[in-house]
């Protein structure tokens, strides 16, 4: 635990936001200079606004788990399970009637959303119970449940992707309201809600206190078990929301979609100033980090870097930024 305590000192929240903004600006200028004609087009930013929200929501879910010193490695499993269950619901349990009106269709999609979010809530509750009541280390508990959720995805689909989502479901991932991408709107709503919850409510304060010092939190009379369970429930629900957006955008759900998102979600929340040992993290930081990395990835894609090299850049970037943090803090 000593190493973790050392690490805690190294992250300074306010400097971190400034540093992130600088990094984002540097990436933006660099990409604009390298690929001015492709990178600075409206279309590029529009497509980013459709793609980044699902990753951003998963990263916020990851941050919530990290606030109490945990981690949620099952987010991708939950996201896919939510999307697939909704797909099963739409295609097998409740297919569209031939003369179904717009209202009935809307009801059907709403039921699918409730189902998907409910699954996320349940999955998160399971994680929370295993971690808080079963005292299983979060890494192992969510590793196992993630495997179970992905396993259920395999059982439900048998391998191939589920297709045939209703049009309104696609609207969640592809639609626009007043020219703004629906996923972006969802992301903003989630970000604001979670930010308010973390900074203005007792629940948020509790999470920070538990993450900073779990033992002191118990002595202070906090109901830590319940708070930890709530945080994983919330993280599971957010993961399911990301699954809805992902399946809406691609109009398909598959057991191994978005597997690279897991690393990226950890990366983004750590880059965004979240302390994996607990007690520190902001929605603002995570949001800036996800945008910075999306700009980086889209720029490199335009320079015809292969996706694999972009993986390399993500990983290298994570290590680099953490080294910079350490060196900077060492100087003080």
């Amino acid at each position, binding site marked *: 635990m000593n190493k973790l305590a*050392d690490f805690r000192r190294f992250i300074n929240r306010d400097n971190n936001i400034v540093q992130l903004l600088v990094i984002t600006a540097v990436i933006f200028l660099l990409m604009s200079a390298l690929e001015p004609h492709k990178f600075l087009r409206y279309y590029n930013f529009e497509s980013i606004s459709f793609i980044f929200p699902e990753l951003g929501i998963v990263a916020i879910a990851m941050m919530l788990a990290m606030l109490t010193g945990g981690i949620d490695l099952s987010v991708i499993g939950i996201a896919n399970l939510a999307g697939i269950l909704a797909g099963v619901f739409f295609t097998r349990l409740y297919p569209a009637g031939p003369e179904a009106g717009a209202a009935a269709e809307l009801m059907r999609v709403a039921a699918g959303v409730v189902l998907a979010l409910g699954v996320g809530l349940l999955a998160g509750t399971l994680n929370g119970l295993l971690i808080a009541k*079963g005292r299983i280390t979060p890494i192992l508990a969510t*590793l196992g449940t*993630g495997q179970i959720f992905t396993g259920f995805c395999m059982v439900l689909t048998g391998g191939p992707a589920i297709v045939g989502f209703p049009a309104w479901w696609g609207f969640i991932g592809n639609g626009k309201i007043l020219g703004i991408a629906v996923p972006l709107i969802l992301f903003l709503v989630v970000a604001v809600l979670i930010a308010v919850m973390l900074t203005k409510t007792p629940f948020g304060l509790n999470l920070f206190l538990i993450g900073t010092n779990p033992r002191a939190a118990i*002595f202070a009379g906090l109901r830590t078990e319940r708070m930890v369970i709530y945080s994983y429930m919330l993280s599971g629900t957010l993961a399911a929301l990301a699954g809805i957006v992902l399946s809406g955008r691609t109009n398909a759900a598959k057991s191994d979609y978005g597997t690279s998102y897991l690393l990226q979600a950890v990366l983004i929340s750590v880059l965004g100033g979240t302390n994996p*040992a607990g007690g520190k993290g902001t929605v603002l930081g995570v949001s800036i980090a996800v945008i910075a990395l999306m700009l980086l990835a889209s720029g490199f894609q335009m320079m015809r870097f292969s996706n694999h090299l972009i993986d390399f850049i993500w990983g290298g970037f994570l*290590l680099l930024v953490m080294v910079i943090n350490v060196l900077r803090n060492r100087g003080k």
Partner: protein
Amino acid sequence: MTALAKLLRRSETAVLAILIVVMIVIGVINPAFWQADNLFNLLRANVVIGIMALSVLTVMISGGIDVSFPAFAVAAMYLTVIAMNAWGYQGVVLPFIGATLIGLVCGLANAVFIHTFRMIPLIVTLGSASVVRGLLLGLVGTSIINIDRMPPSLIAFGSSTVDVGGSKLSLMIFIYLGIAVLMWLFLTRTMAGRGVFAYGDDAESAKRVGFNTRRTVYLVYGLAGALAGFAGLLHASMIWLANPRDFVGYELDVIAAVVLGGASIFGGRGSVFGTILGVFMLTLIKNSLIIMRVDNTWQGVVVGCVIVIATALTAWRDRKALV
């Protein structure tokens, strides 16, 4: 009497007991399980994952975690096979030394970040895995080296068997067991091995009683990388192809096996024998679903449940009041 009581309290005993029960149950459902061919196949499936588990065991005893070994294994395997093909080299010893060295270098890089920059092992190894896989697929290549382009010496080595009662037992088992014995000697009979336990129990105390913690960290992650590299090339020679996207998801299985074997993720606890049992349990469950006539798509659910139950039991064993 006390010796017996002590034996019963060991987690290895519990794992062994469960293992025997599981084997009996599988044997009852389908007696074909007990055929020598099936059992030898099962043992063969232990080799690569077992060597990887021994590498993760050392890391876990030191209180860390390693999710980068599949990436290192695949890099060592693919680079070595490509180099062998490029130079037309036919041999066995040198390529394995090469693969081990590639893994060692990668592992030492982990150690630099973890020790020098005091970064959390999970984050470091997530990052380094992404870096190594990205570089391998992005710069070296994405094409699978099939059996027709695999060096014949490797294939011959990987398929060497010994005849036991009419069934063929892969000789690779003995490599696995040899490494296991060496690891056991290292962990329990050398001062450096004691240092790994001490460091995992309490890094600060280990430092104060005079263990060189820097050397311990470098040793642990270097060894983990080296074993991963070795296991990677062994895997290629046993399945007769080198796939640069191989070993995806192995980290889950291997960590699960090590935890099943009684190692604690908090460090300071774990044994080679337990890990061997854990690996055997995991491969047994994975490979016997078909023989138990369970649909293969359930594999993920079953393995996940095993991880959760096993970790819950370990957590219960290690339970302490939080305050």
